[in-house]
């Protein structure tokens, strides 16, 4: 049974939770830019968290399914059109042969589409995620109209279940980065006091920001390993928040790290919607992640 892609958007890819085990060969982690949204889509259709789903960039995105399946669409301001208008963040029943179109607003940078049973592709280096920059993955490129994606055996998913969409409000908690002490106190303050604009050349590697320059005393550092959410400050002082397709290592100091529960707020930010950072302790980050995972249980309300 297959999912037929009829309209593919602009840079849409298949993603699972990525390939963290190959970082020491220089292989980027990949996975969804907005991890909560993809996890929610998979949870709504009864899939495992690591199931392969579609990360949509550029709407509308249209699919047709060979057999009856449960679908879910997530992301900021998303909805779907089948035989009628359907809500986002909800498990949707789609009949065999029916088309479903994912829609959103100008605030939808990434939308996620999960199908019960998941997209069934052979893993490459332990993952089905596409990394077009290195032609990596079972589909080593962005999706195009005409793609036929094999689906796994459908599970007993219940249409109508809902997960509440998170706040995409641009407020972002950060914990101290490993190189924070290489920045002057005034720079550390500036990160949490100023508003940062998102630049249009942001992508799955990182979100580029414009605000007061965050010059470090150090300039460059010895190249070191990186994690998702790292706020890297290149020369010139314009920070970059690193996302799923970041290089595994980098040579710029990391002033802060965005907490995992707020990665989606950063990834989904669009130009004109400024980001505001605030410092928290590590414990708060773990608590926020715990709450987020609890929120992944679909409700029938």
């Amino acid at each position, binding site marked *: 049974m297959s999912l037929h892609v009829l309209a593919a958007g602009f840079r849409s890819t298949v993603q699972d939770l990525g390939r963290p085990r190959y*970082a*020491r060969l220089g292989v980027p982690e990949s996975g969804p830019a907005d991890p909560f949204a993809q996890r929610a889509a998979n949870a709504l259709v009864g899939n495992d968290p690591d199931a392969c789903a579609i990360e949509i960039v550029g709407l509308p995105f249209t699919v047709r399914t060979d057999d009856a399946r449960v679908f879910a669409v997530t992301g900021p301001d998303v909805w779907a059109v089948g035989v009628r208008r359907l809500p986002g963040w909800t498990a949707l029943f789609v009949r065999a042969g029916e088309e479903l179109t994912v829609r959103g607003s100008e605030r939808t940078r990434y939308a996620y589409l999960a199908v019960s049973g998941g997209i069934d592709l052979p893993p490459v280096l332990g993952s089905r995620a596409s990394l077009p920059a290195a032609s990596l993955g079972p589909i080593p490129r962005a999706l195009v109209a005409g793609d036929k994606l094999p689906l796994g055996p459908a599970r007993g998913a219940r249409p109508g279940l809902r997960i509440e969409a998170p706040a995409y409000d641009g407020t972002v908690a950060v914990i101290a980065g*490993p190189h924070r002490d290489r920045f002057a106190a005034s720079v550390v303050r500036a990160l949490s006091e100023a508003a940062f604009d998102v630049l249009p050349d942001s992508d799955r590697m990182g979100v580029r920001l414009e605000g007061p320059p965050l010059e470090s005393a150090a300039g460059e550092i010895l190249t070191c*390993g990186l994690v998702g959410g790292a706020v890297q400050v290149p020369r010139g002082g314009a920070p970059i928040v690193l996302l799923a397709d970041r290089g595994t290592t980098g040579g710029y100091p990391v002033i802060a790290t965005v907490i995992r529960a707020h990665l989606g707020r950063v990834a989904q930010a669009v130009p004109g919607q400024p980001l505001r950072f605030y410092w928290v302790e590590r414990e708060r980050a773990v608590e926020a992640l715990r709450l987020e995972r609890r929120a992944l249980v679909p409700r029938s309300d």
Partner: protein
Amino acid sequence: MKLLPFGEGALFVELEQRIAPEIAARAAAIADSWEGRGAGTAISAYASVVLRFDPLLLEAGEAERLARAAIADADAVTKSATPRDVRIPTTYDGPDLTEVAELSSLSVDEVVAIHAAGRYRAYFLGFMPGWAYLGPLDPRLHAPRRPVPRARVPAGSVAVIDGQTGIYPYDSPGGWRLIGHTDVKLFDAAADRPSLINPGDTVRFVPT
């Protein structure tokens, strides 16, 4: 040595602030030791290691204790792979070759001879699949990072910056100085050893 949080799901081990084969080897051994404990994956670099774990499964204090144990045991960890000699057939025709020669007050032929005479250690892999950080580069070659990185460096470009050399496995943006190119495939996900160059290997550039 410093042990610092790196996000809620990783620790950052900073050994020193310099490039030396024995420090990179120690960083790699700590990464092996951490991964051997099964708590998560690690990323070693010149003189630091990122130790990753699931913050919902491992409490911060416990992760730190485990990290200290992994660091203490690192010297006992045996290397997984035997280092190899890798030869890279290289055409020295890069767009920055003349500029590197000028910056170094050398002739182009001298730059090529010096670069090709080096035996480079692969300190670690990072940045993109199959990219090996190679060094040390002869200090007679001066190649500061380009002030404005190129938007697209072609795959196979042989590049230098002060103290280091490397080969771009894929088309990508990049700020290193390009002195030549190779047609060798550096990364193949389907191969048993996906990366041609692996940490600890010795790399030589052979002019063609």
